[in-house]
């Protein structure tokens, strides 16, 4: 999951303010497509590590940003979320997001120079360090209404964080000072969209009947490709693939590039007659960006590359040190064995530097390469003959 997604969904937020009853027009009307539709006045990045988590940002202008933490095989999943610099935003983190009964939602607040609050802005990259989110309802601090949303936000103390990891929060962050919060009208520290207005133990965000009148709020829209309740003509990302339509070479995700697709948004209206179609000349046919953004990089790539100084690029040695390409089993066995005994040669000591999980990543990476790729053709020094078995110390 090596991608970051962003989308605008202003009407999604306004739904809550209206208390349900179907779609609401955005008060700002049809958004204007700008050169940079997401960040008109710059942005910054929030980083940190969490357990497996959905991280959402809700900003004053109704813009909405989200990302998923990256499962790197540890319990510290890094994330990076880009937020606009000119807006006060609020962070909400959700574990087990896929499960209505196990989902745990944690609003994030900040303690900063004597004040505290959930709405903040920042001038530059901030790092929140590790945030110990509960992974089950049982581990929650308090959930009196049983909606899976913590009653009070988890508060990050900027002083503590700055002194521990140099998160630069005090230098770069400011809390919103307004007495009212447009996204938290009852000032309970939970953005309205995560309140549970009708007390049915489902926060509004996931409740399709927010006012409890037994009428499903969202009308099924005929022109809503991704079913997010935002009709395509007002949805910045028709197919919800994380690539805003302006930059999406395939807006309806039908596998046909817009350039070749007579009906870019699959609404049954051909583009020439469709008022909701960005002209193809302004759509960047950038399949590479889409592919790159979603291509997962195996965990082993970087770890394995650190063996190459001695064992050769891609594990194909050009000298007497053994090759690693295609040797997954051997790597696992030998390194596990080395870790068991005291290090008396370079490789044994190196083996002690890696966790068993990392060794698995490395082994898997070299196993996938196979032994066939390259042969050693670049041999700048005439090496002495004989295999080096790493037992280099005659003592």
């Amino acid at each position, binding site marked *: 999951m090596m991608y970051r997604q962003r989308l605008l969904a202003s009407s999604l937020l306004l739904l809550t303010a209206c208390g349900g009853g179907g779609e609401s027009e955005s008060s700002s009307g049809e958004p204007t497509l700008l050169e940079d539709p997401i960040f008109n006045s710059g942005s910054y990045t929030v980083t940190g590590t969490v357990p497996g988590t959905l991280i959402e940002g809700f900003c004053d202008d109704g813009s909405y940003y989200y990302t998923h933490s990256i499962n790197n095989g540890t319990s510290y999943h890094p994330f990076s979320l880009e937020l606009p610099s000119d807006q006060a935003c609020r962070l909400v983190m959700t574990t087990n997001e896929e499960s209505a009964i196990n989902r745990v939602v944690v609003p994030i607040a900040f303690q900063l120079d004597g004040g505290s609050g959930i709405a903040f802005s920042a001038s530059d990259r901030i*790092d929140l360090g590790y945030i110990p989110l509960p992974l089950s309802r049982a581990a929650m601090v308090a959930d009196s209404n049983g909606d899976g949303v913590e009653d009070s936000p988890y508060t990050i103390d900027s002083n503590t964080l700055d002194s521990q990891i*140099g998160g630069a929060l005090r230098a770069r962050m400011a809390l919103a000072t307004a007495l009212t919060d447009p996204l938290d009208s009852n000032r309970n520290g939970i953005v309205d969209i995560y309140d549970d207005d009708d007390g049915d133990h489902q926060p509004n965000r996931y409740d399709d009947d927010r006012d409890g009148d037994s009428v499903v709020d969202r009308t099924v829209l005929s022109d809503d490709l991704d079913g997010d309740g935002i009709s395509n003509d007002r949805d910045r990302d028709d197919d919800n693939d994380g690539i805003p339509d302006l930059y999406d070479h395939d807006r309806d995700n039908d596998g046909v590039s817009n350039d070749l697709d007579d009906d870019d948004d699959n609404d049954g209206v051909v583009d020439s007659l469709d008022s909701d179609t960005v002209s193809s000349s302004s759509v*960047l046919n950038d399949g590479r960006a889409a592919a*790159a953004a979603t291509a997962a990089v195996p965990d082993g790539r970087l770890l394995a590359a650190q063996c190459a*100084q001695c064992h050769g690029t891609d594990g194909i040695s050009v000298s007497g040190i053994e090759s690693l390409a295609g040797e997954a089993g051997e790597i696992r066995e030998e390194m596990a064995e080395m870790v068991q005994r005291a290090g008396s040669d370079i490789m044994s*000591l190196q083996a002690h530097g890696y966790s068993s999980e990392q060794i698995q990543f490395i082994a898997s990476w070299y196993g996938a390469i196979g032994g066939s790729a390259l042969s050693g053709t670049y041999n700048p020094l005439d*090496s002495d003959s004989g295999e080096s078995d790493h037992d280099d110390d005659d003592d």
Partner: protein
Amino acid sequence: MTQISRRKFLKGAAATAAAATALAPGLLHAATTNHQVVVVGGGFAGATAAKYLAHWSSDVTVTLIEPKLTYHSPILSNLILNQNLDPARLSFSYAALASNHGINVVNESVTTIDTTLQRVTTNSGQSIAYDRLILAPGIRFQTIEGLDSTLIPHAWQGGDQVAMLRDQLQAMPAGGRFVMTIPAAPYRCPPGPYERACVVADWLQRNKPGATVTVLDANPGILVEPEIINHAFTSSYAGVVEYLPNATLTAVDSAGKVAVTALGDYPADVLNVIPPQEGGALIHEAGVANVGGRWAGVDPLSYESTAVANLHVIGDAQGTGQPKAGHIGNAEAKVCADAILRLLAGGTPYAEPMTNSACYTPISATTASWLTAVYAYNPTSRQMEVVPASAGAATAATSRNYSAMFHWANNLFADTFG
């Protein structure tokens, strides 16, 4: 961060490339929508970064800017002093990086870096735009009063300087005095000066009877492999090597070949001054030398400067506290290259990078020792830290180590320049 984010967002946009072309007629690769990564400096760190960026991704256009046509490895270069190695065997061109990996090698020097417009200018006036810039300028020497390195070699960069020291040693009279100075840490290649003292002492013993080696060390003691080095100084080379700690160099009489130190004046027949060091000129010009004014502070997850966005510093010039040497410079380069590719794809750097240091140290013409450590990223301190169980050194200098040293060097050279 405003411009950076826009750039990131518009990555690959034809509009960006077109606009850049209009701004800079000399721009390379204006027609492509690939991301532009420019690497400045073709030593171990820079060459490795260029190679792995291209090796791991076809979505980046990699330009390597290095004024020298040939790189002369400092690694193993003490074996030029004792004439065990022909200098040509430690010389590498950038042809393999260009032909095997499609890297644009620009044999020019960088004159200006504009970190706002994100472009570098070379001595020919060529302007090259970047999405990400990697600086790998290595070291530069701090000023020592009276030091003229055209007379008194440092031999701490490969090539002519090493040849000059070799020639001076060859011309030294029997019974002559070789004096060398070691700067206070941190400096490039921690074991290197001690290795040099040993290799030269061994050679003098056999070739210049009665000659001596005086080691003037600004540090309070032997910094690395102290048991083996001390054993060599006091046993193998007893009567040849004189080791003096806390001998900080204050000035040099270059014409008279005298080292002026805190402990007194040391006249020499051959004087080798390894001056105190700091990160190369480019990090100072780019305004990123924010660690003690000497080194570039970087985030060890990506080696991105803590001072300037989209600018990365790897190798000896960076200030993470990892040792300054070619093997670990290669390791840092891979972390940086991997992070840049992930960032350009809209992701985040790998969260738990590892690096490692390993080197063999010749102690004589036929024996060597070694030193190694693995470094892991600590997310709490946000530093690279030694994994204690992984750190160690040889217990004796052996001929087997000497053979293994060439296996190591071969793969390291090939992994970097091949």
